[in-house]
C-alpha cells in the first residue's frame, strides 16, 4: 500500500524509531516539547511547526528537552554530550541562527575527531529549517548549506522528499560524526510513500528522480521539484532532461554527476543558496575539471541573487530560482 506520509511526519517517525531503539538518543531545542515554563500540556508546541509533537509523552522530559533561548549554550551542550557518550539530536529552529553557535559547530564538533587523534567521537545531529518562500524574511529563510559544506569534519544533508528525509535522518543519528540535517520548511507538507519500518540511506549517494539524455540538471532540496517541473515542460518540446538530486552535500556524489554529464554533455546546477561559493559553483567547477571533454556547452548555475531574502512576497518569489528560469537555461544550452 502506498503509505503516504508528509515530510514533517516522516521526520517525527525517524526520531521516534531511533529513540525507541537506542536509549542514548535524546532531542533538545527551543520549544521542541513546548510546555515547560507554562501551565497545562507538556507538549503545547511539539516544535514551532509541530515536527517533534508527541515525543515527550513517549520518552519523557529527560530525553526531550526544552532549552533556553541560547543556541551557543545548548548546541554546545549537545556537542559536549555527544563527546561524552550520548547521541543528541539538537534543533537549530532556523539554520539562520547558526551565527551565535558557529564556533561550537565548526571549531569544536567538526574538529574533535581530528584534534584528539581519533579518541573523541561526536555523534551529534543538528537539524534546522532552511529555505525561502515562507514569507519569513531575511533572517529566517536562508540556504546556508555552502557554509557548512565548506567545513571538513561536518556532514551536510538536505533531503527533497519525505522518503529520503526519514532514511537520511536515521542514517544521520546512527552516524558517529556531526551531521547538519537541513529541513526545507516549504517541503514539510510534501507527501511520499514512506514505509513504517526503520531504514537508512547512505550518505554520498545521489538519487536520479528522472532519467534523460539531453541535459543534466543537478539540484537539492526544493530545487529538485523545480527541476522536475521544468523537465515536464521540456519533455513536450522533445528535450529529455536528467535530474539529479544530490541528497547529501557533504559527502557529495560527484561520480553520479560526472557519469550523467558524460552521457548528456550539458550541465545546469540549480541552487537556492546565494551565488558566491554556492553548491552550484562547486559542482560546476568539479565537472569542468573532471569531464571537460564531455561538455557540449558551458555549464550554467541558476541560484538566488546575491541579496538577502526579501520580505515582500513579490520580491521573495523572484528571489527563488523558478522552473521557468530552468526551462530558459536548458533551451539556451540546446541551441
Amino acid at each position, binding site marked *: *500500500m502506498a503509505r503516504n506520509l508528509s515530510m514533517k511526519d516522516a521526520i517525527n517517525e525517524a526520531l521516534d524509531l531511533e529513540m525507541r531503539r537506542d536509549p542514548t538518543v535524546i532531542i533538545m531545542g527551543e520549544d521542541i516539547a513546548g510546555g515547560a515554563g507554562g501551565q497545562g500540556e507538556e507538549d503545547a508546541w511539539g516544535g514551532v511547526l509541530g515536527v517533534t509533537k508527541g515525543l515527550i509523552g513517549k520518552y519523557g522530559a529527560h530525553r526531550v528537552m526544552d532549552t533556553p533561548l541560547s543556541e551557543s549554550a545548548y548546541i554546545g551542550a549537545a556537542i559536549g554530550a555527544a563527546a561524552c557518550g550520548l547521541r543528541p539530536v539538537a534543533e537549530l529552529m532556523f539554520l539562520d541562527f547558526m551565527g551565535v553557535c558557529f564556533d561550537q559547530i565548526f571549531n569544536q564538533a567538526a574538529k574533535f575527531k581530528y584534534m584528539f587523534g581519533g579518541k573523541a567521537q561526536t555523534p551529534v545531529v543538528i537539524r534546522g529549517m532552511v529555505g525561502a518562500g515562507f514569507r519569513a524574511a531575511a533572517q529566517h529563510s536562508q540556504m546556508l548549506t555552502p557554509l557548512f559544506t565548506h567545513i571538513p569534519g561536518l556532514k551536510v544533508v538536505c533531503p527533497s522528499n519525505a522518503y529520503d528525509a526519514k532514511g537520511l535522518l536515521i542514517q544521520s543519528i546512527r552516524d558517529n560524526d556531526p551531521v547538519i540535517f537541513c529541513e526545507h520548511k516549504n517541503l514539510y507538507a510534501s507527501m511520499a510513500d514512506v*514505509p*513504517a*519500518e526503520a*531504514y537508512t540511506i*547512505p550518505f554520498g*549517494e545521489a538519487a*536520479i528522480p528522472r*532519467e534523460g539524455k539531453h541535459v543534466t540538471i543537478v539540484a537539492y532540496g526544493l530545487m529538485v521539484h523545480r527541476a522536475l517541473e521544468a523537465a515536464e515542460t521540456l519533455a513536450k518540446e*522533445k528535450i529529455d532532461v536528467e535530474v539529479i538530486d544530490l541528497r547529501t552535500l557533504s559527502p557529495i556524489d560527484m561520480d553520479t554527476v560526472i557519469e550523467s554529464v558524460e552521457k548528456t554533455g550539458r550541465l545546469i546546477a540549480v541552487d537556492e543558496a546565494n551565488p558566491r561559493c554556492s553548491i552550484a559553483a562547486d559542482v560546476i567547477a568539479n565537472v569542468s575539471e573532471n569531464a571537460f571533454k564531455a561538455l557540449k556547452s558551458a555549464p550554467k548555475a541558476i541560484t538566488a541573487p546575491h541579496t538577502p531574502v526579501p520580505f515582500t512576497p513579490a520580491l521573495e518569489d523572484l528571489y527563488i530560482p523558478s522552473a521557468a528560469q530552468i526551462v530558459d537555461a536548458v533551451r539556451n544550452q540546446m541551441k
Partner: protein
Amino acid sequence: MSDTIKQVVMPKWGLSMKEGKITRWLVSEGTTVGVGDELTEVETEKIASAVEATDAGVVRRILGEVDTIYPVKTLLAIIADASVPDSEIDAFLAAYVPPAVEEDEEVVDVYSTVTLPVGEIRYAKYGSGDKTLIFIHGFGGDCDNWLFNTSGLADQFTIYALDLPGHGRSVKGFTDASLSGMADVILSFMDALSIDSANLIGHSMGGAISMKTAIKAPKRVKSVTTFGSAGLGIDINMEYIDGFIGSDSRREIKPFLEQLFFDAGLVSRQMIDDILKYKRLDHVPESLRELADTVFTGGKQSENLVEAFKATGIPMTAIHGADDKIIPAAHSEAAKSFAKVEILAGTGHMAQMEKSKEANALIAAQAK
C-alpha cells in the same frame, strides 16, 4: 470503430502503469504481421517489454514516435488487411477520438495486511472467480514480481500475492527460516483468510515453498505451477545469492540483477532503486543471510522435494527459462515424470515476467 481497421494501443501492464515510452519499432509500415508478433518495444517505470500484435494483417500506419512517452490506451499504430484502401484509413484517423486519459480509475488499494503467528504479512488481492490462485515470490522478491500475471488473470480467478516474511513490507524475521517454516506461513495465511484450498504458483524459492506446502497439506493444494523452481535439484548460483545480499549500491547490485534476465536491458533504474530501498530496511540483510544459510546451506540447495511431491499425486506444471543463470533448466526438465514441463527459449530466471503471456496461459490451464 471498424472491424477491418485494427488499433494498436499503449497497453496497461500491471495496475499502476500510467504511461510507457516507445524505445524501438520492430516493424515498419508495410510489414505483414501475425497474431503474437512483436511490434514495438516499450519501457515503463517498472519494466521494458514488447507490445505484441493481437490481430494479423499489414502494418499500415505507425503513429507513435520513438523516445516518446504516451499514456496507456494511446493509439500507436494501425493494422489492416492489404486490401483496405488508404483513404479508408485516413478517414478513420481523421474521425478518431482518443479515449479519455484515465484519471486514477483504480484508486482501489489492492494491498492489505494480516497478522499471522510469524508476524504481519502484506498481501495483494485481485479479481474474482470461484478458483483461487496464490502467488509466492522467490528469494529477495516481493508480491509485485507478479504484476504482469495478476493483471492478466484477474478476470478469471480470485488472486492473492503475498510478501513472505523477511521480504517486501512483511515482518522482517522468521520463526523458522526453512522451506517447512515458509510452508507453515502459507498455510496460516490460508487459514487466516478462510481459503480452504488453492492453486499455488511459485517462483524460484517460492516454487519450492509451493511444493513443500503441497507435501505438508495435500488437501489444501489443488495444483502447483512453478517458474525456475528450487527444490528440484542441488545447483544454485550462490554467487548471485551472496552478491544480492552483499551489495549496497546501484553499481554493485546491477550486474547481479542482470543475471536474472535473458535480456540484461530489462533491469531498469526503477527496479534497482526499489530493490535497494527494500534492502535498506532494518534487518533485511540479516534476514536474507539467515534464509540463504538455511535454504542454500553450503552453496547448494538444502532440500530435494521430488520424491515427496510425486507421492502426493498433485498436478504440477514446471516452467523454466532455457537460459536461466540462477537455477538450471535441467532441474525442471527432470520433473517430466510427474509434472507438465515447459522450457521457454530465450528466457532467463524471471520467466513469469519475460514471457508473461505464455506464463499466464500455462497458469490458467493448470488451475482450471
